């Protein structure tokens, strides 16, 4: 399975150049702004300040985007529950899934009536994203 693929570095040269340029422009804009404020030209100072802030915002956005992609990579481990049911007295217990469990497998004895219980369900619960509007 030795083969060529995309490079694993997430910090590409293009992104690096854009970030450097944005950083340079922002610093220059802040310097111009400082000069303008010093020379009593408040309006021009505000404009340069605005350009500087915009440059910094762009920079932060790009860094966040890169980080978000990295964070999304791991495969999620799902929490799975096994429900054990006594068919005689309806006693029910829920525990985490254990390897070897399957639906309708005979489980331990019921603590109430000593009857053999069965695994009645195995499922994972998914929490829906809050505040997500759906059309019905």
């Amino acid at each position: 399975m030795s083969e060529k693929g995309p490079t694993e570095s997430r910090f590409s040269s293009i992104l690096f150049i854009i970030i450097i340029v944005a950083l340079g422009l922002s610093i220059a804009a802040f310097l111009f702004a400082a000069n303008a404020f010093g020379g009593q030209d408040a309006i021009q100072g505000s404009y340069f300040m605005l350009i500087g802030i915009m440059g910094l915002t762009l920079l932060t956005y790009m860094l966040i985007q890169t980080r978000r992609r990295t964070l999304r990579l791991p495969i999620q481990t799902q929490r799975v529950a096994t429900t054990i049911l006594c068919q005689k007295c309806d006693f029910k217990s829920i525990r985490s899934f254990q390897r070897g469990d399957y639906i309708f497998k005979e489980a331990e004895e019921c603590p109430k009536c000593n009857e053999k219980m069965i695994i009645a369900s195995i499922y994972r619960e998914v929490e829906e994203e809050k505040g997500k509007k759906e059309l019905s």
Partner: protein
Amino acid sequence: MIPQVSQFPTGQGDILGWILQVAWLILIVATFIYGQRIQLTLMLREVEGGLFRLKFMRDEGRKTAISTLKELGGSETDLTARVDRFLEYVAIEPVNLDPSGVIWRLEHLLDVRDIRFKDEVKLMVPGVGETQRNNVELMLEAALDLNIIYKVIRHFYMLGKKTKSLYIIMQIQMLLPLIMREAEAFANALQAFTQGQPIGDGAGALVAAKLMHGHKTRKVAKDVVVAKVPIEGRTAYVLKAEGPGGNVGKPGEAIKQIIEKNKAKITTAIIVDAAQKLEGEKPGEVAEGVGVAIGGPEVEKYKVEETIVKYKIPVDVVLIKEDIGDAYSTMRKEVFDAADAVIDRIKRLILERTKKGDSIIIAGIGNTIGVGQ
């Protein structure tokens, strides 16, 4: 305020203004000349990001497969080489230029592939039971699928990069979100297959298991069991793949055999299966209709269609909706709960469409991993 804004930053005589005007001009000309190249670079970057994630998933699949096989007692020496060989396994479709008999040729190739996979797993982990072996086979198949997806996308990425063709890259970039969803589904399936947990695709098998639980079962076709269950005064032949190991069996062959054995006595067939939901639909929603809902390479679907046409048997279908990610990962609670709603629908269908004393078939389709009977 407005005149001041219009003056900035191109005030007359202002050197900074001139520099900015020239910069704008250069930017516009560059956009005209290199616009497509810039677009291509951006698209390539997006595909590269997806490819990076696919590579990660592929490597995780391989690692999971090797570690699980080692846990199950696979020999350390040649296990990695065997898994790598397995991940490169290909099955070539039969020729369909002359479609006559293509189904039987396809079935034969699928059977041979299945036997090869089972033999390979037996050689990797000789000491494990059938249930575990079936689960391992499924896990390896998921890893194989991840490897294929990664390699195909990498092929188009590299081809697009080499030829600088916007159209090759554009196609892959547009399909990437759907491909990623499928790959993520396979990546999530690894946990379910490794642990032997029931998956969303087994919703049909779960319904059949609930109906046949407590009744005597017998094997009817390859990896399929059937039980004779009295429901509402009718005799139902309830069938599903044999669990709890990962299995889909040959439900089409089983339905065909039951119908032919009972000649024309079967008055209706009800097929229960998981179906891909549309965006906006809720997982676990139940829908019904007519037709044969058997997924996969359609060999089994063909067998059922041929037999029901021959004997003029009406076929109803009950579907449990879920998305592709849910179909391959551990069964969601909503899908599990839908099984009882499906049983109610089946009972209603039986009461409305059949008479007391009739014989019917209820087939629970899907992978029965983690579901006994």
